[in-house]
């Protein structure tokens, strides 16, 4: 018997046995009772289940996001420098960041001599968790929030401040002066910029009247001039600068300045521990750009409100498809229609591309069919579901700000630690306080004038 046979045949026997077992249990009535019990447990604790699902979902979401942002960083910085960036691994270099992630896994994981092993191991985990947990309150789409807390913004700032604990732990526990310097700089920097970061959205909170991020987004519904950036431009600038510093991004990346202190707090880290720091930084980029869009740019609201336009043209788009009403024709459509369409497309391609064999045109037609079908489904989803529209706009805006972060990294040199802290304490805190006062005053004046 071949090797494949040795694996497959026992597997098939196992599957057959399991099917028989399930049928028996179903007939006997054990299985329906079990399903009923599980359903009862779930429905009674729906909140906890939902929370666990949300936590798992954001944990799984961060990894592809980090890969996408790393790829964007590599390509954008290369383009800024009139170069191409990775273009050999994967089509247009898209697998480069994935390969980098796997490379990080494959490296030797060691603890340096003299390092405090427990603290050394836990530090990257804390930093990563701090970045990931903040995603729990960010509204991705209407109804798509991890946990809609009514103190969402406060929770966000509290948890994102935990990252400095991880950085300091990493800097101190590696038995290395460069790491020590990096950790101290990180502590000073993040603590200094917490204040402008927190004070700048105070104006937004006053305008929206709620700390819940979902609520803030809902208050910005409408056209793009309803977004808070037009009502709080100064706060936006201060917030963006503070966010750059909080995320340890250039021009404030002196915690990991490679031309001065090698890699700062992460000098002695290698392998997956460094991978955690690495991912934490890029997830932080995404989180901060997501927060910027939520607070100032309308979150998942689209810049134009299509309803007045559609009403003007008396057009209604109803994306509902009555799948149940199609009955047996649905089965025929899927089983016969898809191969028929693919075959027709193959014939067309095969006729007009004389150099290709039938098999090649069949493959191309299949791929093309899948691409067109996916596009059609996406457009239908876009038109009919609010969630898809919201998610689309949210992602567009968040990645635009991630692009701006990367753009700044490629262009600007670094500030010095004393200039950085001077800038925070002497300028940003004052400006954000002034902004808060002016906003409060303006709200009072408007309320008096309009009597509301």
């Amino acid at each position: 018997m071949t090797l494949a046979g040795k694996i497959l045949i026992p597997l098939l026997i196992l599957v057959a046995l399991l099917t028989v077992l399930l049928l028996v249990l179903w007939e006997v009535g054990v299985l329906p009772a079990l399903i009923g019990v599980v359903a009862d447990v779930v429905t009674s604790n729906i909140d906890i289940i939902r929370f666990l699902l949300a936590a798992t979902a954001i944990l799984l979401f961060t990894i592809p996001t980090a890969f996408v942002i790393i790829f964007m960083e590599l390509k954008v910085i290369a383009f800024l420098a009139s170069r191409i960036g990775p273009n050999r691994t994967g089509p247009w270099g898209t697998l480069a960041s994935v390969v980098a992630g796997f490379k990080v896994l494959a490296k030797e994981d060691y603890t340096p001599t003299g390092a405090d092993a427990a603290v050394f191991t836990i530090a990257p985990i804390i930093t990563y968790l701090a970045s990931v947990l903040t995603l729990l309150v960010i509204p991705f789409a209407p109804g798509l929030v991890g946990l809609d807390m009514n103190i969402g913004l406060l929770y966000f700032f509290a948890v994102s401040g935990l990252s400095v604990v991880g950085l300091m732990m990493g800097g101190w526990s590696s038995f290395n002066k460069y790491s020590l310097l990096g950790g101290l700089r990180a502590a000073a920097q993040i603590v200094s910029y917490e204040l402008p970061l927190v004070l700048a959205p105070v104006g937004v909170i006053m305008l929206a009247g709620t700390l819940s991020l979902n609520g803030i987004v809902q208050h910005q519904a409408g056209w793009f001039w309803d977004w808070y950036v037009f009502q709080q431009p100064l706060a936006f600038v201060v917030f963006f600068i503070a966010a750059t510093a909080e995320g340890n991004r250039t021009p404030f990346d002196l915690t990991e300045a490679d031309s001065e202190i090698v890699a700062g707090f992460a000098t002695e880290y290698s392998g997956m521990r460094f991978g955690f720091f690495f991912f934490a930084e890029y997830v932080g980029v995404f989180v901060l750009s997501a927060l910027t869009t939520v607070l100032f740019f309308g979150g998942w609201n689209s810049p134009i409100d299509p309803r007045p336009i559609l009403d003007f043209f008396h057009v209604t788009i109803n994306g509902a498809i009555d799948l149940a009403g199609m009955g047996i024709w649905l089965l025929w459509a899927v089983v016969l229609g898809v191969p028929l369409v693919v075959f027709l497309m193959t014939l067309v391609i095969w006729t007009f591309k004389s150099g290709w064999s039938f098999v090649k045109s069949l493959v191309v037609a299949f791929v093309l069919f899948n691409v067109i079908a996916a596009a059609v489904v996406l457009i239908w989803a876009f038109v009919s579901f609010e969630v898809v529209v919201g998610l689309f706009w949210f992602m567009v805006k968040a990645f635009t700000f991630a692009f701006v972060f990367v753009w700044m990294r490629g262009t600007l040199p670094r500030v010095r630690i004393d200039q950085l802290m001077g800038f925070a304490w002497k300028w940003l805190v004052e400006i954000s306080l002034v902004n808060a006062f002016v906003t409060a005053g303006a709200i009072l004046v408007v309320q008096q004038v309009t009597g509301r």
Partner: protein
Amino acid sequence: MSRVPGWGIAMGMVHTFVRMTQAKRTIQYPEQRQEISPHHRGRLILLYDEAGNLKCETCFQCAAACPIEIIDMGGVDTKNRFHVHWGPAEQYAERREESALRRSGRPVADRSFEAWLPIDLGPLEQILIRNDYDPRRLLTILEATQQQYAYLPVSALQHISHSTGAWYSEIYGIASSYPNLIFEPGRVSEIGLCQCATCAMLGSGRIRDALVAALGTDIGGVTADGAVRFVAADCGGESRDEPLVTLDGQAQPHMTAEKAGRLAQRLRAKAAQPARA
């Protein structure tokens, strides 16, 4: 300096964004290659002229000018003198007695390639069968091979590597740790002396005495370690000023009795050290 704070930063960022849209300067090797100017001096090739003749005249200027003394040439110069060793002597294993340019049509095998020539692998196969193709018995295999072929030919080592699975470099490393295993066929040098009347009048008798004293054998014999053979040569009446003394068939000019003695001693001393490839 602009009065607007952040203006320089903003202008810098606009500039890099504009650069993003312009042409990229990357050369996609290996599909595109950077054109090397024809005047580039980095290519190490010997040039030919329009008629297809090699332009190199072995004038030695390049070797003289090289600051790291890495260029060497072979053969005799226009005054029939041997090439001057330029650099430390240990770099020069006597492998190039003749330059291909001066051979004037006479094919002479370059002895340094003898180790790479194909050999009869039948006996080697027997040795491997006796040792069960076991790479752990490599020393036994190598010693048997040396006994069979009198040295370790390269093709034998390659065959051993293919059959046993040990890496060639491993086998080479093991073999080179043992001084009794040699990689080049043992040299038997030949010193020839012409005994005709003309040469005798020109002093070949004294040279013969010196060589007999140095080698320990007379004409027609081999030294005790089999390294140097003393043969009779024939000048054909061509010798004018000095007797004909040959080394491996090549005439040695300006040979005196002392020089011949020293030459013989040098050959014996060199044969005492095993040759390494």
